[in-house]
C-alpha cells in the first residue's frame, strides 16, 4: 500500500467522519491547553525568581576616604569578574543628587548638608547566565574583604525567602501539571476509544473480507497523528497568543512595567507536541487492537 493511497483513504475518512474527528481534536486541544498553561506558569515562576535575583544585584559601598584615582582600577577589577555583567559608579555627589530627587519637595531638609556625606559606591548587575545564589553570596563575601570596601549589600534575606516560597509554589504547580497530564492522557485515550468503537463494525467487516491489520489501521493512525499534531499546535498557539497579549500589556501599562514574562522554552513545546502525537497514535493503536483479532 503506497503512502498516497493511505493518505487518500485517511482523508476520505476524515471527510465522512468530520464531526467526530473535530471533537477528538478539540478534546486533545483543550487537554493540552490546560497543561500548557500550567507549564507556562511554571517557567514564568522560575524566570521571575532568576530575574529578580539578578536585578537586585550588588551594591558595594566604598570607605569615604577612598582616593578618587583608585576608582578606575576598582572598576576594572569588578568588571573583570565573570559573574559581573555591568558596573556603574555612583559618586558621593551622584548619591546626593539621587537623594534630593527622592525627597522632591522635602529636599530642604538637606540644606547645608555636605554633598560628600554619602559614601561613593558601585552598583553591580549580575550576569544572568551566571546567576546562582550561592555564587553571589560567595562573591559578596570576597569583595567585602577588599580594603577600599566598607560594605557589600544585596537583598540576601529577600532572595532566600523568595527561593523557599517559589520552590514551594513550583512544586505545587509541577504536581498539578503532572496530574493534569494524566487527566489529559486519560481523556484523550477515552475519546479516541469512543471514535474507534463507533466504527467497530467497519473494522470487523474489513477484517472479514481479508484486509490486513496494517491496511485497516493505516488511515486511523494517520488521523490520530493529525489530531495530535493539530490539537497540540492549536493549544500552544492559543497559549502563545495569550502570552503576546500579556506582553503588549507589559509594554503599555504602568502597572506592569518591569514585570517581564517568558514563554515555554522551545524544546518543551516540541516535547509537548511530540507527546501529544504519540499519545494519540498509541491510544488509537491500543483501542483498535481488540477489533483486529478475529
Amino acid at each position, binding site marked *: *500500500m503506497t503512502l498516497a493511497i493511505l493518505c487518500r483513504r485517511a482523508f476520505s475518512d476524515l471527510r465522512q467522519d468530520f464531526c467526530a474527528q473535530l471533537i477528538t481534536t478539540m478534546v486533545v486541544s483543550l487537554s493540552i491547553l490546560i497543561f500548557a498553561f500550567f507549564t507556562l506558569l511554571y517557567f514564568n515562576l522560575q524566570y521571575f525568581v532568576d530575574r529578580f535575583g539578578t536585578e537586585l544585584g550588588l551594591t558595594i559601598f566604598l570607605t569615604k576616604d577612598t582616593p578618587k584615582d583608585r576608582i578606575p582600577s576598582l572598576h576594572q577589577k569588578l568588571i573583570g569578574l565573570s559573574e559581573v555583567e555591568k558596573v556603574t559608579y555612583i559618586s558621593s555627589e551622584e548619591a546626593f543628587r539621587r537623594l534630593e530627587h527622592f525627597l522632591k519637595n522635602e529636599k530642604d531638609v538637606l540644606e547645608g548638608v555636605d554633598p560628600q556625606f554619602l559614601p561613593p559606591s558601585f552598583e553591580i548587575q549580575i550576569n544572568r547566565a551566571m546567576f546562582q545564589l550561592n555564587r553571589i553570596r560567595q562573591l559578596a563575601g570576597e569583595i567585602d574583604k577588599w580594603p577600599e570596601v566598607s560594605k557589600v549589600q544585596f537583598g540576601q534575606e529577600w532572595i532566600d525567602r523568595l527561593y523557599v516560597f517559589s520552590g514551594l509554589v513550583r512544586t505545587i504547580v509541577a504536581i498539578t501539571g503532572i496530574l493534569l497530564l494524566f487527566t489529559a492522557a486519560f481523556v484523550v485515550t477515552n475519546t479516541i476509544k469512543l471514535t474507534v468503537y463507533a466504527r467497530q463494525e*467497519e473494522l*470487523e467487516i474489513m477484517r*472479514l*473480507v*481479508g484486509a490486513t*491489520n496494517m491496511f485497516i489501521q493505516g488511515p486511523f493512525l494517520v488521523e490520530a497523528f493529525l489530531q495530535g499534531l493539530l490539537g497540540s499546535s492549536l493549544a500552544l498557539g492559543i497559549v502563545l497568543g495569550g502570552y503576546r497579549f500579556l506582553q503588549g500589556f507589559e509594554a503599555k501599562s504602568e502597572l506592569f512595567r518591569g514585570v517581564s514574562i517568558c514563554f515555554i522554552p522551545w524544546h518543551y513545546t516540541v516535547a509537548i507536541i511530540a507527546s501529544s502525537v504519540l499519545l494519540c497514535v498509541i491510544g488509537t493503536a491500543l483501542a483498535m487492537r481488540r477489533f483486529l483479532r*478475529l
Partner: protein
Amino acid sequence: MISLESSIIRFKDVFKKYSPDNIIFSGIDLEIEKGEFVFLTGPSGVGKSTMLRILFCAERPTSGEIWVDGVALSSLSNAQVPYLRRKIGVIFQDFKLLSNRTIFDNVALSLEVIGLGKKQAEQRVMQVLEGVGLTGKMSHYPLRLSGGEQQRVAIARAVVNRPSIILADEPTGNLDLQRTEEVMMLMEELNARGATIIFATHDERLFENTHRRVLRCLNGKIRT
C-alpha cells in the same frame, strides 16, 4: 476415498463447544474436493454458520485440525489470516455491509483490501453488479435497499475478487423464487469456472433434484 491432493477442505476430528453444555460439533471428519459444490443443511441453530465461520477463521475449533487449500488452520497466525480470507468469498447470513458506504464501494472493498488498481477494480465491480442486477443502485446506501437487494450486494462482494472457495450462508434466504433461481444460476456458473462452493441452507427445495452432495448436520455430527 478422496485423496489428500484433490481435497481443498478437510476436517479431522473437529470439536467445537462454546461451553461444556453448548457443544456444536463432536468429532467431524469431512473432505470436500476441489471444484465441488456441496449443500450444507440442518435445522436452525445446528451449527451451519459456525462451520463456515471456522473455515474462514472467524472462529477457532476447540480441538481437531482443518486444512484449507493445503494449509492447516491451526498453524495460521492472526497476521496470516487475511491472506487465507482472500481465497475465500463469504456471503454472510446477515450481509455485513458497511452502512456508510455506497453499494459500489461495498463491493469494491474486497478489491481495495488486496490493493487492486482503481481502474481495474471499477471494471470488475461494474461487471459483478450487472450480474446481480444492481447496476442502477450502485450509488445508493445499503440501508435504502430491500433485504433481497442487500443480499445480492453481499453476493457481489463475495465473488468480485474471484475466490477459489465460496462459502454461502443462506444466500437465498430473503429472495423470491425468481431471484433464488438467478442466484442458483450464478453459483452454478462460478462453480463451472472452478470455484469450490459450500452452500448452507435449510431450504430443502434447493437440492431436491440435485446430483450434488448434501451434508446434513445433526447432533454434532455431519452425515452425507
